[in-house]
């Protein structure tokens, strides 16, 4: 007696090669026409509802295209031609604005129209394939699934389509389309001098990339130092947190250490507090008049009115940020390494002890290689995470201290915080987009090279 009712599930045969090209080559006239009049092949073969859904999608798309889409595509090419004008209104005695084209919206609607077109081409392929399958079944005298059967198949062989539909719509709307949009902006002149709706911006090709890399420009003079600080920061932050966290975990897990749970709790406490709370309070603690400076004054390390410029001197700011990041990151590493440490085979240690190895040697020759072997994927993620570590920099120093040599960047700005400033404060959207693309290129090379080598990618089915 099973829990599940046994249902009769007829199996609907599919042609062995149900691909778009085969459908076009081997299909009859109705099947081929289905690529252009969606659902035709289904309707003539009595799959009315399925056919009508295809047809409705097509009609909907063309209605959109003719009422709005063609204009949007035209504007997408030009990004608007009519500039906002001023007309003197004699009756009121003031200048009035006449509406012009909004380049931003032109670009946005263009991208949306292109995305919809891509979707419709996808539907066209589905329609053709569906017609081909139905034709095949008809010719072989096999059963043709009714609409009810189609719905049922969503729970069985088409479950993936059913479950993925909503998440993918979400991803398309909130990740893919915005991303394409921002990538396109990197090739336009959308900066603070070309702000819609007052001004138009236009396509400029690779000009922004040239500006970013050209010798002697202020942008290049900003980009390279910011890039090198980003890389230095990512390496130092990742390595320091990792090594120190590992040592801390070892210290707590030593045989001789008492009350392991208590010590662990003391460190976990700082992880449990929301990060922006710790970061904001750290910012006040290291403020020019914050408690750290107060303590130093009372201890007589610095004069009563002096204060150490933790966030206002470039070098101090960098060191302070790295130290605070260690404070934040070490307990994380301690948590994630504890379990793995306990898995290191004890025989390795015993053998090393018999050979007379000292504690540092054991750490260097056994513990560290083992941990690195297991945790390389983690290290890569935390490296890429640090390159994009917006919160720590933004909430602590805000990128400051600002520098006159830089193009709206501070000495501790990472590429991402600079991106934020360029877009939100400075409104140079095109430059921000260029930086976003460059960050992506860096991250993509680093992680694709390394991630593809990890075991979890190569044989994901190992435990199934």
């Amino acid at each position, binding site marked *: 007696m099973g829990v599940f*009712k046994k249902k009769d599930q007829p199996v609907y045969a599919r042609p062995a090669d149900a691909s778009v090209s085969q459908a076009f080559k081997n299909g009859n006239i109705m099947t081929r026409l289905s690529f252009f009049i969606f659902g035709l092949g289904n309707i003539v073969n009595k799959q009315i509802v399925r056919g009508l859904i295809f047809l409705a999608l097509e009609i909907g798309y063309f209605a959109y295209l003719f009422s709005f889409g063609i204009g949007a595509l035209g504007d997408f090419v030009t990004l608007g031609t009519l500039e906002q004008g001023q007309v003197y209104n004699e009756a009121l005695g003031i200048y009035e604005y006449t509406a012009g084209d909004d380049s931003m919206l032109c670009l946005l609607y263009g991208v949306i129209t292109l995305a919809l077109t891509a979707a419709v081409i996808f539907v066209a392929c589905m329609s053709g394939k569906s017609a081909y399958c139905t034709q095949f079944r008809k010719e072989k005298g096999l059963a043709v699934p009714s609409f009810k059967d189609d719905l049922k198949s969503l729970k069985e062989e088409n479950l993936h389509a059913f479950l993925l539909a909503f998440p993918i719509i979400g991803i398309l709307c909130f*990740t893919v389309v915005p991303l394409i949009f921002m990538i396109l902006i990197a090739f336009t002149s959308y900066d603070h001098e070309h702000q819609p709706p007052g001004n138009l911006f236009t396509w400029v090709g690779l000009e922004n990339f040239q500006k970013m890399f050209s010798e002697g420009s202020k942008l290049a003079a900003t980009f390279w130092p910011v890039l090198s600080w980003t890389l230095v920061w990512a390496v130092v932050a990742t390595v320091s947190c990792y090594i120190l966290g590992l040592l801390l975990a070892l210290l707590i897990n030593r045989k001789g250490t008492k009350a392991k749970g208590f010590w662990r709790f003391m460190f976990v406490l700082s992880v449990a507090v929301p990060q922006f709370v710790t970061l904001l309070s750290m910012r006040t603690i290291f403020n020019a008049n914050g408690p750290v400076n107060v303590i130093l004054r009372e201890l007589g390390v610095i004069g009563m009115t002096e204060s150490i410029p933790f966030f206002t001197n470039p070098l101090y700011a960098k060191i302070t940020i790295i130290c605070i990041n260690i404070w934040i990151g070490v307990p994380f590493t301690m948590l994630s390494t504890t379990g793995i440490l306990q898995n290191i085979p004890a025989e390795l240690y015993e053998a090393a002890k018999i050979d007379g190895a000292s504690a540092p040697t054991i750490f260097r020759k056994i513990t560290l290689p083992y941990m690195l072997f297991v945790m390389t994927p983690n290290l890569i993620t935390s490296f890429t995470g640090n390159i994009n570590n917006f919160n720590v920099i933004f909430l602590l120093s805000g990128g400051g201290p600002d520098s006159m040599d830089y193009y709206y960047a501070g000495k501790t700005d990472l590429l991402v915080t600079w991106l934020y400033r360029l877009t939100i404060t400075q409104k140079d959207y095109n430059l921000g987009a260029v930086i976003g693309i460059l960050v992506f290129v860096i991250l993509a090379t680093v992680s694709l090279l390394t991630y593809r080598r990890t075991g979890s990618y190569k044989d994901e089915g190992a435990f199934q």
Partner: protein
Amino acid sequence: MRSKRFITNTICHILLAILSVIWVLPIFYVVLTSFRAESGSYKSYIWPRGFTLDNYINLFKGSSSLDFPKWFMNTLIIAIFSTILSAFFVLCVSYVMSRLRFKMRKTFMNIALVLGMFPGFMSMIAVYYILKGLGLLETGVLKQVALVLVYSGGAGLGFYMAKGFFDTIPKTIDEAAYIDGATKWDTFIRITIPLSKPIITYTLITTFMAPWVDYIFAKVIMGNETSYYTIAIGLWTMLEQEFVEYYYTQFYAGCVIISIPIAILFLLTQKCYVEGVSGAVKG
């Protein structure tokens, strides 16, 4: 030999004690300042001259410009809705990627990996304009809907962790269900989900915590509508030039108030996380 071990043990314990003081002191300072009786921001001394609960009381009374209880409710509502939505997305995608085999599977996983590498808020401006185009930035309530969509819209991309968990559930269990006549949908709802409590709790809690700690997206979408702020932007506002003198101690009180539930949730997740990565049913 024995005394040497005793000395190293003592040194280790002293080291641990010093380190944990370093790690706990800032937190202690936050709690201490939240009870400080004197108003004003930075003081030339550490230990408060007097203690009071007024900071907490005033915080919960709220004021027209900085209304903490309202922010708290805003964040709670947004957190609940975005948790439901994104947990649904994540579980669907990770089940599909783990259990079902179809043509575009590898492609989808690679695309997800690549998309994850763009800086998140690079697309923020575009998202802002899309929401504006949809008319979701007209009123405060709609902005909250927009924020929920922003938090959960792309959630389907974060499926790796849950997929890894589903991968550890033996396929034989599924096959037994198929023989009993279960469809794949039945298997998903009635077998996989009940077996995946640790990872579901983990997903729920992590997505629930996101709105409490996100600053950037909330700020861009909410703009200046103070009464619809979430906790994170609200607390940040308290530290701004015009407010810091008056709200400095209340800021710390607010920090303590939201840290407590989040810390508890975090400690809960830790447990689920360990269970989650160590796999589901053995053999």
